[in-house]
């Protein structure tokens, strides 16, 4: 950890300090520091800066914070470690550098986790996202028995083989912060690192939101409308994909992969909401996941025919 940091910026005292320390570390490494994707997503992986940029031959190093929504995990703010909205810090490095594990361990050191004092472990955890048509091998990273990050070598995303493979790191920020600050409830986190009257806690920022969204997600989300929205997003995605293809000089190009992808992500989130409302049966569930995956795959296919996707 940077000893020159003022107290309110220290990752062990401030939630935003943690976030900024990680940004700083990865910026120093040379990552593009992106801002969050402006759509509702379940995890940082869904940001096009990861999903789409993981595809194609072009090198890509980026890091960003992604607010993530998992409607089903809401507990009205009452559960000490479960929230329907939380932050992930996401790093993607393509191609995966040979010293990715060392880079990751140094990032832990940068936020104050000393490997001479803490038991850091790489425990098998293969990652698969059926909705994204993606999988990779890697670990969950443990610090003293607590999972603090997910470490994945992407093998396939949106149904497309990764060539080269990208390495992905996902830090669960709230959990990490609880550990660093020594608190047992996420709501008790010091958000801004100040003390006394100046202190802002996580509770002050998010407790009301957790209550309102839990209520919405479990009780009031309008399912008729959501079913409709799912269909609309699905149709829009397909429409934009179909409209985006161009044939020129014997080459297929795609001109609207990103807008189409937005709609795929929209459908995915609407599905999560419907799932949280408990209105999707087990068999239907599979078919919805399949429909989102088909969209994701079609977007991946479109992306690799764009310039950033590496189309010559």
């Amino acid at each position, binding site marked *: 950890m940077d000893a020159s940091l003022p107290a309110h910026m220290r990752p062990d005292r401030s939630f935003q300090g943690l976030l900024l320390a990680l940004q700083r570390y990865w910026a120093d490494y040379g990552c593009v520091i992106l801002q969050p994707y402006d759509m509702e997503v379940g995890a940082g992986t869904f940001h096009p800066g990861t999903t789409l940029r993981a595809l194609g031959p072009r090198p890509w190093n980026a890091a960003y914070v992604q607010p993530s929504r998992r409607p089903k995990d809401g507990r009205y703010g009452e559960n*000490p470690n479960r929230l329907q909205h939380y932050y992930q810090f996401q790093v993607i490095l393509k191609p995966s550098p040979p010293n990715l594990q060392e880079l990751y361990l140094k990032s832990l050191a940068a936020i104050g986790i000393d490997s001479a004092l803490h038991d850091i472990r790489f425990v098998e955890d293969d990652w698969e996202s059926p909705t994204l048509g993606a999988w990779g*091998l890697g670990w969950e990273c443990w610090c003293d028995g607590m999972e603090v990050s997910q470490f994945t070598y992407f093998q396939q995303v949106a149904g497309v083989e990764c060539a080269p493979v990208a390495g992905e790191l996902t830090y669960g920020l709230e959990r990490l912060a609880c550990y660093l600050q020594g608190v047992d409830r996420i709501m008790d986190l010091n958000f801004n690192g100040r003390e006394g009257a100046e202190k802002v806690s996580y509770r002050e920022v998010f407790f009301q939101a957790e209550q309102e969204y839990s209520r919405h997600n479990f009780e009031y989300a309008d399912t008729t409308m959501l079913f409709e929205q799912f269909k609309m997003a699905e149709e829009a995605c397909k429409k934009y994909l179909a409209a985006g293809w161009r044939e020129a000089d014997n080459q297929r190009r795609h001109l609207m992969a990103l807008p189409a992808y937005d709609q795929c992500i929209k459908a995915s989130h609407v599905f999560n909401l419907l799932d949280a409302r408990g209105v999707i049966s087990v068999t239907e569930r599979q078919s919805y996941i399949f429909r989102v995956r088909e969209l994701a795959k079609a977007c991946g296919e479109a992306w690799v025919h764009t310039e950033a996707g590496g189309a010559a």
Partner: protein
Amino acid sequence: MPDLLLELFSEEIPARMQAKAADDLRRMVTDKLVAEGLVYDGAKAFATPRRLALTVHGIPVRQPDLKEERRGPRVGGPEPAIQGFLKATGLSSLSEAKIQNDKKGDFYIALIEKPGRAAIDVLAEILPVIIRTFPWPKSMRWGVRSAKPGSLNWVRPLHAITATFGLETEEPDIVNFSVDGIEAGNTTYGHRFLAPAAFKVRRFEDYEAKLLNAKVVLDAERRKDAILTDAKQLAFAQGFDLVEDQNLLDEVAGLVEWPVVLMGSFDQEFLATPAEVIRATIRNNQKCFVVSDPKSTEKTGKLANKFILVANIEATDGGKTIIGGNERVIRARLSDAKFFYETDLKTRLEDRLPKFERIVFHEKLGTQAERIKRIERLAAELAPTVGADVVKAKRAAHLAKADLLTEVVGEFPEVQGLMGKYYALAQGEDASVAAACEEHYKPQGPADRVPTDPVSVAVALADKLDTLAGFWAIDEKPTGSKDPYALRRAALGVIRLIAENALRLSLSNVAASALAGLSVKPADAQKIPSDLLAFFADRLKVQLREQGARHDLVDAVFALGGQDDLLMIVRRVEALGKFLDTDDGKNLLAGTKRASNILSIEERKDKRTFDGAPDAGLYSLPEEKALAKAIGEVKAEASAAVAKEDFAAAMSAMAKLRPPVDAFFDKVRVNDEDAKVRENRLKLLNEIRSATRAVADFSKIQD
């Protein structure tokens, strides 16, 4: 003779794959060495989270020289054939070939001498192939090279290869090869945190010692021993006992290179949660051991409020931070578990059932709710047969699956059934009903306990029979190695439940009843019970084979037809097995087979069978008469014994057939010149066959 040291140094290998990987490495390298004519003295392989290592000692320096004769074309054969022969054998002209004469003429023979290669060159050729084709259950690509097809696949990124070959007395050579840009060398690395520096190694002995200095225990068995010893000691020092767990031990030994065993605590209040839930929480999520308290009473559970963790480092603060961190995580996990358990207790099991109406058991077999209704009906139907109270059996079947919808089981599927028992007891259900919630899943495999409480037995049978009938009805039977619904296990469960509880029931009737309860109506419904029966017979054979008993006897009993009382089948097979172990049994079997063989030959010859009673007036020899008499007596005696289900007595009766059968074959010529006598004697032989059918079809017994 020289030794090989091979190390493949990578990022963390999943614990569950390490042991097999070490074994595969040893097998692949040594197989290949032998195939190359390099017979070695010994080999041993090791695995840690970050390395696979192999030592093969006593490898010859060189392959033996090979001399090979290759036969070529005929002398004076066509020119292209001769040119081809010269090219293939490397001879410069025919003058270098020998000429050999055989029945077909003169042929060219090339003598090819292949000098043996240096073992180190052979290794340099085989090792990269083995690395490239290594059978990891899951492997991956990584880094810049993964942009191109054909890049190396390994379980996780491979960083370094050490490969040395040489004699103890000399500086060993590096085996020269590279895989995907990784050059084999003699440099490896120590513990990731405690001694990460690179160092050079010569051969296995100094390799293992240097690793130990660098805080890496190479041998998983040594790591396990150390963990177990330390864990037991830590527990013992505080007056507790370690709850041993071999699978967990195997796993944690695969997560550390330098095991450091530490003990932490959790709040006493969590002990109010069932011990199995605490253990599942601590074990599955945290990979820690639990500790039992010999002084504690049953009521608070036998666990102590301690856990044992295995760290991978010697921390500078003696492990205080690590223990503190683990305690925090375990506290959070146990609060969750306790919360789940207490939440579960607030809802009665039966109130959860309506949810099953929305949960599909199988697309073609309806919802879980429908399945539970079927099990209820079957359990009630079976109850009188197994000696269970009908009302209790029905109630147990009604509640047995309800715990699947509880929070605890949602979190820890392995405590399904057990939680049902806890919740049933908590809501005041009868003890047998509660027990059945747990035991109806049993037996889960050949080693699992078979329930004996009649209520459990009724529900366990109903559950399994419904599953079997259902999947048979929709034609989802196991094929080859595929048995996704564990139907073989279910059938074996039924067999064990019946046999070990000495239950009498007609499987065909029960199967038919289970079928009738299904909403699917398969076209071939009437065929299914007999199909299922054959499946049970198959399972019974497998089970007997695994127990080292004679499984062919099952066929001999089933061939009698109409056998669907499993207990009787098992008893008959047992009695038959014992009988066939005696001399009487063996000789009678031989005699019966001889009779059958003669009969089938003659039947084929005459294109007729020799059924029907022989004519006593045509007997001319005393041996004929004696045999006829014996058959009559034995038939009556054996049938009477079988009717009384006394199969041992039936076998003793059979034994009386042996002397007259032996004497008959000794003295009587079956194919007499007189056609009538011949026919009569064949009929008598047929009688032997039919007499033995009182106990089994002897023709189906293997010698």
